[in-house]
């Protein structure tokens, strides 16, 4: 028994039992008593069926689609920060976050859309929260959110290219494969399964090249300029990718990236569950320090940082946007909302636990947390995979695979974010600022600002800004649900409690990060020493620019908190009005 206890599997299985309770008891109660779902009520998929946006599909297809839509790097990289506090707090947050907040958020965002003709978040906010102003606040909020998420992912891709030599070549092979797949699918209209086989072979070649040709070496342009160079190379790729027509690059890239991405996720989950048989045991301590600062940087105190560092694995605001804008339009019957919304989110929780397991098995005192930072994921994941797929001989292959897995995931996300930034810019900037909505200018702005952000902070700090904004969005979506449920005269406790918790946690986290940056700015003003600022090379060589960027982050923090408070005010007002309605 003690052997089993010292592997991650028992904890993952424990979580599965908790999730089973959530799914079969708690979510069922909400489904039946709060929403009173009925198989007889017509869903938008039938009401407006057009075979493109609106069409009914089975719950298993939609579950797979929803899982693919919400499973990305959030639950994989987030636990890296959280494990600084020991794996137990992270595990508890992933389990409880999913049980009481995550599934409720995803399920409810589908339901509010299904009950409102398949409308997405923007129109729902307009309808229920009081017109144009809250909707514009939401858009403005999205714009800042996209900048921060871009900064995080641009930094991460550049970092992965740097710390995993060979990954860049592998990525280029995948790009070429995507271009060819686009031609095969849309120009030559080849059978999709033939194309699938071609894509999988190309990805296998990319992984092999990544392992066999570790070029260019780490820091090939020196510690000061390598990251900047990778960021700029990436920006060029992203510029063309985001501006190319959908069938040329984005659609085939999304298509082929799903194979290593979802494949990697499945390999990871199985690896974590098989640990009692494969003999991989826990290495990290269950409890760590609760107020962590690694050198000059670090996540900070466990409250509120833990709750925003693991965002998507426990609860994520972005899911409400995806759930309401796409999934809700394909729901066959209302009773499918629970298996799709709650089912996919709880599966995502399982993914977060498996990713956590990859960090849990790294031996205590290992230097990967200090040296390679996020590379720690690859260290753990390759062990989990090789233990049951190929043994030690396959370790280099799995290392290359999981490094490519991270890059492809991040790149696909970033292409979509850059493109979406352009769409939001076009919508938001009108009148004298309409030039900012021009597709070329918007794309350049949407890439250069994040690169500057990435150079001026560690990814830990950016991640907390990103997690904070993302979770705040979740709080707002839960609040919106509470308004709609209150209008229906049904009990709203299952969403209003989590909504208030998320607002407190996220505004505290954003406040913490703003305070950190403000502290750096004040220290610089007192000492004039650039080392007290958050700045990566080469920005560090230009003290005034570094100082300016730190001030910018203080301002962004204040704006995000301000927008969050403003939106919360409108939501609370509407919620009170909805409750007092006769």
């Amino acid at each position, binding site marked *: 028994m003690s052997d089993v206890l010292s592997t991650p599997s028992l904890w993952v299985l424990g979580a599965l039992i908790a999730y089973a309770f959530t799914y079969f008891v708690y979510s069922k109660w909400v489904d039946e008593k709060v929403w009173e779902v009925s198989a007889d009520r017509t869903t938008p998929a039938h009401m407006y069926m057009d075979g493109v946006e609106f069409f009914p*599909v089975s719950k298993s*297809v939609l579950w797979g689609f929803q899982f693919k839509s919400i499973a990305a790097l959030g639950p994989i990289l987030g636990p890296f920060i959280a494990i600084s506090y020991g794996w137990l707090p992270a595990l508890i947050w992933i389990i409880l976050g999913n049980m009481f907040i995550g599934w409720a958020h995803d399920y409810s965002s589908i339901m509010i859309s299904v009950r409102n003709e398949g409308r997405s978040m*923007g129109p729902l906010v307009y309808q229920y929260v009081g017109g144009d102003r809250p909707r514009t606040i939401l858009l403005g909020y999205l714009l800042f959110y996209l900048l921060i998420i871009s900064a995080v992912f641009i930094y991460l891709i550049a970092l992965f290219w740097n710390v995993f030599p060979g990954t860049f070549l592998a990525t280029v092979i995948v790009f070429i494969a995507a271009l060819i797949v686009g031609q095969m699918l849309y120009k030559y209209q080849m059978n999709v399964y033939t194309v699938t086989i071609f894509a999988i072979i190309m990805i296998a070649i990319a992984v092999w090249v990544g392992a066999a040709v570790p070029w260019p070496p780490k820091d090939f342009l020196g510690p000061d300029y390598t990251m900047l160079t990778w960021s700029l190379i990436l920006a060029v790729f992203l510029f063309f990718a985001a501006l190319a027509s959908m069938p040329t690059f984005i659609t085939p890239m999304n298509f082929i990236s799903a194979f290593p991405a979802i494949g990697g996720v499945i390999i990871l989950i199985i690896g974590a569950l098989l640990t009692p048989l494969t003999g991989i045991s826990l290495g990290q301590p269950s409890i760590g320090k609760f107020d962590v600062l690694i050198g000059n940087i670090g996540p900070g105190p466990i409250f509120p940082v833990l709750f925003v560092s693991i965002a998507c694995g426990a609860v994520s605001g972005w899911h409400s946007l*995806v759930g309401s804008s*796409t999934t809700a339009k394909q729901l066959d019957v209302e009773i499918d909302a629970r298996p799709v919304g709650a089912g996919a989110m709880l599966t995502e929780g399982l993914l977060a636990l498996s990713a956590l397991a990859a960090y849990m098995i790294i031996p205590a005192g290992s230097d990967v947390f200090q040296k390679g930072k996020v590379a720690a994921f690859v260290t753990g994941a390759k062990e989990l995979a090789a233990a049951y797929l190929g043994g030690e001989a396959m370790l280099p292959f799995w290392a290359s695979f999981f490094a490519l897995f991270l890059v492809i995931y991040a790149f696909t996300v970033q292409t979509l974010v850059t493109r979406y930034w352009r769409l939001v810019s076009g919508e938001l900037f009108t009148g004298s600022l309409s030039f900012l909505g021009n597709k070329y200018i918007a794309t350049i702005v949407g890439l250069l600002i994040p690169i500057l952000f990435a150079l001026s902070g560690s990814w830990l700090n950016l991640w907390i800004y990103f997690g904070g904004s993302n979770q705040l969005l979740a709080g707002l979506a839960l609040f919106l649900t509470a308004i709609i449920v209150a209008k229906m005269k049904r009990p709203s406790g299952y969403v209003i409690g989590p909504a208030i918790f998320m607002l407190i946690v996220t505004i505290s986290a954003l406040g913490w990060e703003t305070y950190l940056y403000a502290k750096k700015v004040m220290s610089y003003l007192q000492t004039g020493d650039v080392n007290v600022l958050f700045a990566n090379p080469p920005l560090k060589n230009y003290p005034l620019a570094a100082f300016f960027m730190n001030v910018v982050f203080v301002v962004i923090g204040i704006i995000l908190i301000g927008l969050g408070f403003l939106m919360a005010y409108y939501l609370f007002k509407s919620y009170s009005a909805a409750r007092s309605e006769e």
Partner: protein
Amino acid sequence: MTTLKKIIQSFREFLFGAFYMDLYRDSARMAREYKDFINLLLLGEFLGLPILSTSITLRLIPYLYGDLANWKRRQLAEKDVTDEVPDIM
């Protein structure tokens, strides 16, 4: 259908949803955009846009008829950027 068959069927559907549904949706959306242009080109005259001769339009109407109601709804529907959010998280 036996339970095992049901499980296998559900698993296959899950894989379809995870790997192919996005491709289907994106492709269908692109096809629809082209279709909307054709609709506008052919039926624009009915809306007051002098584009093609009515005789061609009338001959093509049987082919367009099936999608007319949806086309009208699409054109009149409110557009919002949150409709277009990508799957990133």
